[in-house]
């Protein structure tokens, strides 16, 4: 599949602080790409560069075969954006703001606009300063989704939405995807990314540290194991034997129960060892996105 967004070796500094430090990212046509990373990792900065709002210091950035800094007008006809912190014009109603954006795009899908207002239960007659945080966010979502753009760039679009609206949002993004649109979705809500994204990139300190589908990521991430051992062998012999295995970490003993995590290469050996001691109960959990995420975030302090 063709790439709608491809970034290689992207660098961006603000004064002396380095925001992006050799970032690589690729979003294929028709996929929902989740963009995860701790606060200040550089997600919004990347998205702003993709929109030609910031200028890259180094590296190559291509969006829909164009240069986002030079080809602003032509590219933006095909891209819609939801900013992370929507600030509306105090004197303009939500409806006016949506139509302003629509008019700049040369028109919007009227039917879709009406439908989205209904689905998101958004009153378009309220003035900008009177909207709640979540409703401000909805105004930008409606403006973006009622456009005919091929690529949606969404920066934490659901921050402030209630769980019901969050579910609605997910449904709508699936529909957009079914229509063949590509989505780059930055988010801190892991469940959202888990349920929507075809592929995920995790960014840390201005670099993408892991990218791939959730399955791929899981396959080389650590698996959690919890087992209840027969008899009193656990404390005296099982624990040291398990700890000695390569790839086993975070071992914890609670009476006859033992918890540990193991990387994909060590799983078979760990199972054999456990079987040798006699297991009465066993749960093996594949890593959740949260685990993956925390594994990457956890190294935060270790390398500076």
């Amino acid at each position, binding site marked *: 599949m063709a790439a709608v967004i491809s970034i290689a070796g992207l660098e961006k500094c603000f004064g002396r602080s380095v925001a992006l430090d050799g970032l690589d990212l690729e979003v294929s046509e028709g996929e929902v790409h989740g963009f995860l990373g701790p606060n200040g990792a550089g997600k*919004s900065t990347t998205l*702003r560069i993709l*929109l*030609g*709002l*910031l*200028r890259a210091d180094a590296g190559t950035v291509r969006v829909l075969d164009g240069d986002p800094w030079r080809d*602003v*007008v*032509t*590219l*933006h*006809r095909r*891209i*819609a*954006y939801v*900013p992370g*912190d*929507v*600030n*509306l*014009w*105090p*004197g*303009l*109603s939500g*409806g*006016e*703001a*949506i*139509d*302003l*954006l629509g*008019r*700049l*795009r*040369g028109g919007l899908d009227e039917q879709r606009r009406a439908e989205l207002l209904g689905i998101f239960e958004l009153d*378009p*007659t*309220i*003035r900008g*300063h*009177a909207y709640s945080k979540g409703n401000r966010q909805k105004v*930008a979502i409606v403006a973006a989704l009622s456009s005919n753009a091929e690529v949606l*760039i969404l920066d934490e679009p659901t921050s402030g939405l209630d769980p019901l609206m969050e579910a609605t949002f997910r449904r709508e993004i699936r529909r957009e995807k079914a229509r063949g649109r590509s989505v780059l979705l930055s988010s801190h809500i892991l469940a959202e990314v888990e349920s929507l994204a075809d592929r995920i990139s995790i960014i840390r300190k201005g670099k993408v540290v892991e990218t791939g589908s959730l399955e791929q990521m899981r396959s080389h991430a650590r698996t959690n194991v919890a087992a209840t051992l027969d008899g009193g062998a656990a404390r005296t012999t099982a624990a040291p034997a398990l700890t000695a295995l390569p790839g086993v970490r975070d071992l914890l003993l609670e009476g006859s129960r033992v918890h540990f995590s193991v990387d994909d290469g060590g799983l078979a050996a760990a199972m054999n060892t456990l079987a040798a001691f006699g297991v009465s109960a066993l749960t093996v959990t594949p890593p959740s996105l949260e685990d993956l995420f925390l594994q990457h975030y956890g190294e935060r302090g270790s390398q500076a």
Partner: protein
Amino acid sequence: MSGTPFTGTTALLRHALRLDRWKLLPWLLVFGAFPMMSYAAYASVFSTPLEARALQLSLGSNPAFSLLFGQPGDLGTAAGFTTWRVQMFGMFFAALMAVFAVTRHTRAAEESGRAELLDSGVVGRHARLASAVVLAWLASAAVTALVELALMAAGSPTGPAFALGSAFGGMGLAFAGVAAVTAQLGSSGRTANTLAATVLGTSYLLRGLGDTLDNAEWLLWTNPMGWAEQIRPASENDFRPLLLLLAVALALTALAAWLESRRDFGMGMIAPRGGPARGRLGTWGLTVRLNGGAFWTWGIVFIALGSVYGLVATTMSTVFRDNPFVRQMITFRLATEEQLLFAFVEVLLLVLAFIGGVFGIQVVLRFHAEEDEGRAEWLLSAPLSRLAYAAPTVVLAAVGPALGMAAGAAALATSARMAGSELDTAQVVAQGLAEVPALWLAAAVALFLVGLAPRARAVAWLLLVYWLLLTMFGPVLEAPEWLMGTSPFHVVPNVTDSAPDWTPVLWTLAIATGLVVAGLAGYRRRDLSGR
């Protein structure tokens, strides 16, 4: 959360002071410099106290002057003369400064979401309001001190200097209270400012009528500006009205706190009206919408001030006849009365031109605020080039003030003619338009800074203040010509001259164009700051 409703006030105050140090500086400079320069000019305006007393008599009986400047107290001393020249304007602007400061840190901060973050920390219910009011009070006290020090440096005795400073500061105190209340009433920063400015405008008008109409002195007791006027610096030096101002400031602030505990965060007492469900705005319509309030407000100011100036200009003829030395105040070596009158009109138009400069800078800074508050980023994610986005602002900043100047000059000429003066309307409007390139330069500087060094954008205000002071006081203080030449407002020729020299105006235009081009080029190439 433990603590009182005021917990966190000092922390918020410190934060506000840090945010505001550059915003307040131009105001403070004007408050210090204006009285000092007036004071210094006195000696070169009048040669004997007798001349001054004669002027005082004719001004005292002139309603147009009383409406604008108040009754002259004692023009026999430099302090009295300074009071007459600067008291009304100083009081007016001190009040405005306080209003803007309080609104900025209460309602406008809530609106932009800045407040929410801070207020969710360990901050009492009234801490934000208290810190804003205290900030405005500190600024007012600074104004009082600055005026006093500046006047004393110019040679004034302490009493009158402090009295004049207190009239300014007192207005700041009282209107900080007014703004504290309007910030609870209005649901947006703009509504709050408009409400407070309406109170101020009404106050100016009431005291103007009290000074002008017969048997209407009681009107001076109905409003803060009337009270502050009655401190009567340099003649009576009566500080009792100051206590009244202080009492009102405290009472209004207490009222504001009471109102605040009765409303929700982000909401006003006056419910906002809804808007239309659909819109047809493009970037041009948006720019007009965003600046519409300023456009109409300044339009009214231009026409109202122009009309009053027309009356002032007309009554000047009698002042000339009675007081030949007044000529020196305006210009030397002018022969006929018509020429003298036109020279005076030129000075009045200059005041309008400075208002036009303020308007132009405001339009440009509004454009920058859109970026600062994160809305430009959203708009520019649509197929809209940066130049196309900036174009309406450039056009409005050029056309708006020019229209205002034309309207103000026309109003001046019309009201002067209705009052029986010999002014030629076409000439007055032409003179007004001749000032336009100068005020464009002010807006062009602002655009240049927004494009290339947005952090330094306040420099545009400082430059305008510098030009104002230089143009108004340079000639009387006998500033060298090369220095005077640095003000585009000074180099505008008199259109009634037989051969007016337009070269400096063309230079002004060329520089303004260059700054606009450079500013736009910079804006196109630089990073857009999000939130």
